């Protein structure tokens, strides 16, 4: 028929459009996204292979070579115990990424379930959840994280829990809003007619459509989570020594800046900043990748 001929010419251009092709397209489209994904690859590389590749044991002290400025032996200098800052910075990547990814994943899952239920069924469930989220939001979030950590003790798991708790409201609200505007959408109705139960409609039809805006939130939160962990370390509630972690290194190094040993804080700080920067810039690209409508 008439439209068939019009559309058949497009078919050829569709052929190469696999998921990879789509990702490549998204990357090419925006130089900033390209940059972000490049840096992400770098950080992931550090996380996976870093510990095997670093020149020094990140925990080994060497009092004789303490506080040396950057040199060929020690690219980022050494700290007050003579540990190699470069090795520590690289090795810390794994822990920092783990903390942020785990925390965000946890809050993503919990927030999504709560928010989706509230947005879909509404009513008292929605009202109760909203009040609960308001209550969490009414806490100064950083102080809440501190409190949780102080109460539970400062282990890596608890840092993850504390960070996850303060992030839940963001996801729950976002998902609630996204689900709410779609709960009476035509495709949701159609899915019901196709014999899907409410839960299936919610989980397999409505919720996936909330993913693109959530990806932006995820990327921002990945960055926040790292900053949050760093802030907790600055207060003294972070990861236990001598485990290398960027925040704790910046926090400890900060006291050395004025005395001229700038490399202690600046390199981990720079690394931390780059990682957060990467995550923050990632958002738009991630959103475009999970959004089928961006496929052409």
């Amino acid at each position, binding site marked *: 028929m008439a439209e068939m001929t019009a559309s058949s010419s497009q078919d050829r251009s569709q052929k190469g459009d696999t998921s990879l092709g789509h990702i490549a397209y998204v990357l090419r489209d925006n130089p900033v996204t390209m940059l972000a994904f490049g840096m992400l690859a770098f950080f992931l590389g550090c996380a996976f292979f870093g510990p095997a590749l670093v020149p020094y044991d990140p925990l080994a002290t060497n009092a004789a070579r303490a506080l040396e400025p950057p040199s060929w032996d020690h690219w980022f200098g050494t700290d007050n115990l003579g540990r190699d800052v470069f090795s520590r910075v690289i090795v810390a990547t794994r822990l920092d990424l783990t903390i942020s990814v785990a925390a965000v994943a946890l809050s993503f899952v919990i927030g999504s379930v709560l928010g989706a239920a509230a947005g879909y069924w509404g009513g008292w469930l929605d009202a109760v959840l909203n009040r609960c989220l308001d209550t969490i939001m009414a806490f100064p979030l950083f102080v809440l994280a501190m409190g949780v950590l102080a109460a539970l003790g400062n282990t890596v798991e608890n840092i993850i829990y504390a960070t996850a708790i303060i992030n839940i409201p963001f996801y729950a609200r976002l998902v609630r809003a996204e689900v709410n505007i779609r709960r009476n959408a035509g495709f949701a109705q159609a899915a019901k007619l196709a014999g899907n139960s409410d839960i299936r409609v919610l989980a397999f039809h409505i919720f996936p459509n909330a993913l693109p805006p959530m990806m932006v939130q995820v990327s921002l939160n990945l960055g926040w989570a790292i900053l949050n962990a760093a802030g907790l370390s600055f207060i003294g509630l972070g990861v236990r020594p001598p485990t290398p972690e960027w925040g704790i290194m910046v926090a400890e190094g900060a006291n050395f800046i004025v005395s001229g040993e700038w490399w202690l804080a600046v390199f981990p700080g720079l690394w931390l900043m780059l990682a957060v920067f990467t995550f923050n810039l990632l958002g738009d690209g991630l959103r475009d990748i999970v959004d089928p*409508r961006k496929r052409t």
Partner: protein
Amino acid sequence: MLSIKDLAVTFKTRKGEVDAVRGISLDVGKGETLGIVGESGSGKSVTSYALMRILDAGGEIRAGDVTFGGIDLRAASERDMRDIRGREVSMIFQNPRAALNPIRRVGHQIKDVLIRHAQATRQNAKQKAIAALEAVRVNDAAARYDAYPFELSGGMCQRVVIAIALACNPQLLIADEPTTGLDITTQKAVMDLVGDLAAARGMSMILITHDLGLASQYADRIVVMKDGRIVEDGTPETLFTDPQHPYTQKLVNATPRIGASIRSLLPAEIRTAEPVHKVHDRPLLDVRDLVKTYPGKSGPVHAVKGVSFQIKAGQSLGLVGESGSGKSTTSEMIVRLQDPTSGHILFDGQDIAATPAARFMRHPVRRDIQMVFQDATDSLNPRDTAASAIAEPMSRIAGLSGAKRRDRVAELAELVGLPQPLLSRFPHQLSGGQKARVGIARAIALEPKLLILDEPTAALDVSIQAIVLNLLVDLRARMGMSYLFVSHDLNVVRLLCDEVLVMKEGEIVDQGPTADVMGAPKHPYTRALIDAAPQPPRPVAA
């Protein structure tokens, strides 16, 4: 007065440059109303934006001349253009509520224009703005001055948009699909108003529309556009009686009108004999005293106030009404997406209203009642391909899987005329007509006994509408389905339905065999609806 020569407009998009307008020429004389008719993507709106120089980002006039009253609009500075816009050339848009600033009082929006073009001072602007509202027949204009758009009805908003456009007495008014998004009776009122005002002021007008019937009723001359080119130019009468270009012929044929048959909408070369569908005496659906009341902020809202009717097996029933008539609520209750407040829905003698909508997906009747939704785009999950959309009911209800399901999907696609390669596409990669086909294929996948069609062609161009309507007719005959066809378009209902119901404010006001109701409307509301529908001149029999 307006002269366009060889205008070409291109857009930069992700896929490269797209030629939206490919060299068109047209003239509009003083006091003349020119209709530009074309289907979506024909470049008709872009033409008007180009001459106003308000193209969206990425759009660029590549070639051609646009002169208005001796001024070269293409060469004019942006500053001069701003003086021309709103004072010499004005525009009104589709979807009037969205066309108004939602957080500014309508009076102020008129005042902004008046002051901008030095038609009023700050002292008398309010007074002049009220006068402008009165000119578009807004009742109690002084009170409306302080209203916000959300406080006004759609028709009223369009009047405000017109008031803004006409506040400075422009010489040319461009009306871009001015009736889209309005109810049929409001459409007529708005168009009559625009026509009257243009005539009274001796104003030239360009009426941009997809509706050939509408254009023929209000325009002195019509140009037909397709793919960025003008394919034909003439008076309404000549266009309808003697269309030259095949595309015009197709368009004229496809426009539903009194006296047409469903097959006559199709281009002559693909017409086949209209199949006959058999209506049994056995009632398939028996709706009794159906009531739906919503809790509202200011008291309960009675959406449906006790509706009773029957659909016989194999029968097609048209359900006609304007927005707020309760027709959509009624159909959603029947398809079991909503629970009625009271009343019974007997399907094959079984009261399916007794099973709550939330648990109805496991009801055996689920597969027998399906629905085609109004907005094909909205009704397809953006994340699912066409194939998975069609397969969904089969896997959930019929329990089909694997190759069996794949074959059935292919079969259904064949049935609705959807080319196989398109099955792997996502909805946004499909055209409107293709999406409608996917929606239909999904609805008939389980071979339901009753199919509810909720304005299935409302968002489609007329030529596509013609194809889809014919597809529905074919399917009905082939599968013996009953239709509940919900629509506001009487011309379409007339073509498709055996019987018709007219609803207004939650009640059935008129009911009976289609020919009877349409031919001799008993209720004044039915008559008003029929009168409001634009009637193109009858073409010569093709």
